[in-house]
């Protein structure tokens, strides 16, 4: 007496397998994207993170020119890895401002001396306030901000060589 109802669990399970297998083949977005993309950055003002560059405040981002806003820290290993790409971006005319997260002035200075300094301004975010306010979840992260202080694009993780043209393109779009 092989009743068909004893196969119902198997059928349900097969359907689950199908959906799960299909899902597995879908590309996944692993990153937490900021809900702030497309929105203006809230007001802030930060002291300089190092003695040879000025600090950063909202007005600096609202000067009409689009910029890259790089969130980094001297204690962050991928931040050192992305330094050559930041230098390349700088060399191709991208204005870059930095935000140093939970850092000490002497460490910042040592990092910049070692890996180069592509930043026009560096603000010190001692309590991750700006970082949280713009929806960044870690270091490094890079935002494209337009001339009115509106976030136009978010790049999560270190910048690789292949990302440089994308960032330049987004920067150009932000200036239009």
């Amino acid at each position: 007496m092989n009743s068909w109802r004893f196969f119902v669990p198997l059928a349900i399970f097969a359907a689950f397998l199908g959906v799960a297998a299909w899902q597995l083949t879908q590309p996944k977005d692993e990153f937490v994207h900021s809900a702030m993309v497309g929105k203006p950055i809230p007001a802030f003002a930060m002291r300089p993170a190092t003695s040879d560059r000025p600090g950063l405040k909202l007005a600096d981002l609202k000067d009409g020119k689009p910029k890259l806003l790089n969130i980094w820290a001297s204690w962050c290993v991928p931040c050192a890895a992305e330094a050559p790409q930041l230098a390349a971006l700088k060399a191709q005319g991208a204005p870059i401002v930095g935000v140093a997260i939970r850092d000490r002035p002497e460490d910042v200075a040592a990092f910049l001396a070692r890996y180069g300094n592509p930043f026009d301004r560096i603000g010190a975010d001692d309590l991750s306030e700006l970082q949280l306010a713009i929806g960044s979840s870690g270091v490094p992260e890079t935002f494209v901000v337009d001339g009115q202080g509106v976030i136009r694009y978010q790049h999560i993780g270190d910048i690789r060589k292949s990302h440089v043209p994308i960032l330049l393109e987004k920067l150009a779009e932000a200036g239009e």
Partner: protein
Amino acid sequence: MIAELGLAALWLAAALAALQLVAGGLAARQEDSELALLARPAAVVQGALCLFSFAMLVWLFARTDLSVKLVAMNSHSMKPMVFKLAGSWGNHEGSMLLWVTVMSAAGALIGFLERRLPERTMQATLAAQGFVALGFYAFLLFSSNPFERLPVPALEGNGLNPLLQDIGLAFHPPTLYLGYVGLSVAFSFVVGALLTRSVTPDFARAMRPWVLGAWIFLTIGITAGSYWAYYELGWGGWWFWDPVENASLMPWLAATALLHSASVLAARDALRTWTVMLGVVAFSMSMIGTFLVRSGILTSVHAFAVDPERGAFILALLMIYIGGALAVFGFRAGTVAEGERFALVSREGALVINNVMLSAILGVVLLGTLYPLLTEAVGVRVSVGPPYFDPAGAIFTLPMLLVMAAGPLLRWRRDRLERVKAPLIAAGLVALAVLVGVLAFAGPGVLPLLGLALGAGLAVASLLPLRGRKLTRLPLATWGMVVAHFGIAVALIGMASDSAFSEERLAALKIGDSAEIGSWRVTLAAVSPVAGPNWNAIEGVMLASYSGGIPVRLAPQARSFWTPPQETTESALETRWNGQLYAVLGKAADGERWQVRLWWKPFVTLIWFGGLLIAFGGVLALLGRLAQDLRRRTIARKGAARRAELSA
């Protein structure tokens, strides 16, 4: 050498699992073969080898051997020793090795001890166990080798996820694992019994201690996990319906149903198909949970070791084991006759209703967990949260609690409701009194109100089986049931009280300022930096006094770890008999003020106290069953000796 020894032992253990599969499989096919006799010894040696392999991994972590990739990725020489050791299972590869270790140790134990079942069924069970273990060995050896060496040893380790550097969490996964793996043993019993067509009360009795053990560990694991999430994540809640949480809740629900249905089978030889079905479902739930957590197809706040390739591997294992078992079930369930009949109003009847309700809740949770997957298939991204789970779960929980109150009072096979009317009315009156009392006192929402009333009624009803019995002569298993049911009532009261009466306060305080919440007055005394072994933090010192009493010191922290860089919130808790004060230090609001988040949660601790009571009830029942078993064996042995004496 240590790593190589561990790996070699793992390969050998895998080979023995294959032997176990073949030997036991022959027995299942009813072929008389000497090879079948190897199933038991193979299981025992496999267990020993696997245990040895796991010990080698722990040793590597204790020495922080950075030439081993897993150690370099997950440990750090600066870590405190206990977290180094915990690091051996606080990652994907290590936890998989722990899984298979526990599983093969359980197999060894069965091979060594279990004598109740017909030998054939026993060997088929061991074959099923070998088969399941083999899949996990293959997973470890081909896709997640924990002993892999680095070409060049690392200079320093990567550390362990700081969220996991908590003594509670270090031991939370192994606890849950013991539960999951215990269910895999129950699964093997079910497959063995199906294959040899021997779904009998003896089978239920043999399987029951394993289900009970698994269920106890799951209960403790869920309770501890909930408390950990509550104090570590800093959001003041204790359950989030997160996929990872649901992954542990679903096997628990299935195991609870299985436990009750196995009891019916053991005592009355009824519910055979149900029991077998639930045995398959319970293990399926732990596998599906593992798959959801590891494959990354669902987004969760604390999913770990996310990797589609591994997901594909686990999915293949799921397909083979669960699909295979369900197919065997489909073909064989018809041959497992339903067994003894019973009236609806009877102990069995109540247990069937409880089973159906538990299965329905399981369905609700499973559907809610998988729903985002299903909608994503048609291109819609949604998340299902408490607005779905709370009411949908409550629809089935409320009738289940009512049956839970009445069921233990009913007799087996046939009973009359009039016989148990009086005590139930008493319990109902208690519930009503609480309802009226709370309504008069405050006006919380419908669900918490019902929860409080039902919790009070159930607390009384769960003690009713003790009425009129000689307490010293009551079987331990009955005590276990009473304590576990009482624990459910206690946890329920805690949950309802938390959602009905919690107060929350967000304040921006200057040093010296105070905020009031409930009967508490909390003063921010100081904010200062502190340093730990591998983190630094900002610590707020708060002085909290209850109704103007002597202030107690609270010190919540915002910690930053540097390997790997991550921030965690260390909330501070002050526990009183009537609730908990929960404090979190937030960001600096403006130059001189700090954000402080406070909760006063009356009777919230009852949630976890209830959870522990439930687990303790399980322990009592397990001890009772084991003692009963031992007695039965002694009587059988004495009887046999007596018969031999008489015939001589």
